[in-house]
């Protein structure tokens, strides 16, 4: 346990530049608020918050491993006398913590910006605030699970690439396409529809967004993207979480038995 905690804290020391960059991006995102149309603010902020944090972990994983390689500590890390599970989870959980902190800071900043930029007597502001309060935790948890899901896929893809002696890229491509293939094959089946809609925390259609968009003109593609991104249900989140845990386990085993540095 001591080793895991040491490796976990080490990641924060190693990710100093990443943390500074994260803060900078949040501040830049916040500054843009002052330049965009008031009617676009809610949609923009949701897109930024969700999209940014869904790609956060995959990018962080690549950054972390690249940093180990660049600073010539990769062999040291790989050679540590601990299981692949300890090495990977210490690194990955550190990334998750950084992502959660970023998500919280983002949300807090949004609250501040809404109250300072938007007129508090504005119907939109009241609706947006109510909506955030009502849906905050489902958006937060859903985004977090989506980020973990995408991050573990990147971890596993990198591990597969370093494990295969031949045709590594082909194996990686097949692996990354698996969830999409699964969706394409089963998307129209009754079972899939039931699973996806089980335990819905947000609506599957764009209708739930309409109260936010009263008297606004939003571009249709943006609404469609947002409604796709924010379908959060237990039927989606739980399988994503289970799949993520499975990928970490597979990656750990490959790290111990197959990876070559």
């Amino acid at each position, binding site marked *: 346990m001591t080793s895991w905690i040491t490796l976990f804290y080490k990641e924060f020391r190693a990710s100093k530049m990443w943390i500074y960059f994260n803060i900078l991006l949040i501040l830049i995102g916040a500054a843009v608020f002052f330049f965009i149309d008031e009617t676009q603010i809610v949609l923009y902020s949701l897109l930024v918050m969700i999209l940014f944090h869904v790609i956060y972990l995959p990018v962080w994983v690549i950054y972390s491993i690249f940093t180990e390689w660049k600073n010539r500590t990769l062999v040291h890390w790989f050679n540590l*006398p601990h299981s692949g599970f300890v090495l990977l989870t210490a690194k990955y959980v550190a990334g998750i913590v950084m992502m959660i902190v970023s998500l919280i800071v983002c949300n807090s900043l949004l609250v501040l910006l809404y109250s300072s930029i938007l007129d508090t007597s504005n119907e939109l502001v009241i609706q947006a605030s109510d909506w955030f309060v009502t849906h905050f935790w489902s958006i937060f948890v859903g985004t977090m699970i989506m980020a973990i899901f995408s991050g573990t896929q990147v971890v596993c893809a990198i591990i597969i690439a370093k494990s295969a002696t031949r045709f590594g890229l082909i194996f990686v491509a097949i692996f990354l396409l698996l969830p999409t293939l699964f969706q394409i094959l089963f998307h129209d089946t009754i079972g899939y529809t039931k699973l996806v809609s089980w335990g819905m925390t947000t609506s599957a259609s764009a209708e739930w967004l309409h109260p936010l968009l009263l008297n606004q003109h939003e571009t249709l593609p943006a609404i469609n993207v947002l409604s796709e991104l924010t379908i959060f249900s237990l039927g989606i989140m739980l399988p994503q979480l289970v799949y993520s845990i499975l990928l970490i386990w597979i990656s750990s085993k490959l790290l111990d038995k197959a990876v070559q*540095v």
Partner: protein
Amino acid sequence: MQHSITVELDQVTKRFGRIVAVNNVSLRLPDQGFVGLLGLNGSGKTTLLNLIAGLLRPTEGSIRLDGSRVTRQSGKQIAYVTDDQSLYGFYTIQETIGYAERVYPDFVRAAAEEIVTFLKFDVNKKVAQLSKGNKMRLNIAIALARRVPLLLMDEPLAGLDPLVREDILKMFVHFGCIYQKTIVISSHEVSEIEPYLDYAIFMKEGQMTLYASAEKIREEREQSMLNVMREYCV
């Protein structure tokens, strides 16, 4: 007292595409002592050490540690120091010792502090601020402070000035012999490490051309390791 380890290579070959880096090497490392892995650049020394350390898998053959196949987790019994790898630059030397104590179950803090004192390091200096020679010394100090039966060093003297090289070799003698272990050093600086060697493995184009005790080589051939290297590695 730590136990010794049996390292056996059985017809080990390692290919990278069409390049054969190690070709049909079979040997058993001694239970203790200094082993020099000698050969010209590109003779397969680094690849062989990476294979023993579990960083690479052999294309053919097997490598066993106490009868079990070598994997990444062989790091529990092996300390590996390479010239192109570093410790974390954002830690100070003191923090590095603390970090090593927490991640290596076999690490002896007192031994590390003794070596660091011997080297006259400023423990509050960050690793990133150290010169190349001092980084290597610190790397070796951390490895020597681990109570593991096998210590592998890949070109620990490469690119260092003569005084630093001499210091490092003295470190091996002073601290490496206190606890019984096998230390394998790869180098093409044969003349410098010759006085310290108990055994020598000569490599040429991925093949092992000679493996014998240093004493036997000196007695039978009555010539320096450098001349033997000319005969077996060129």
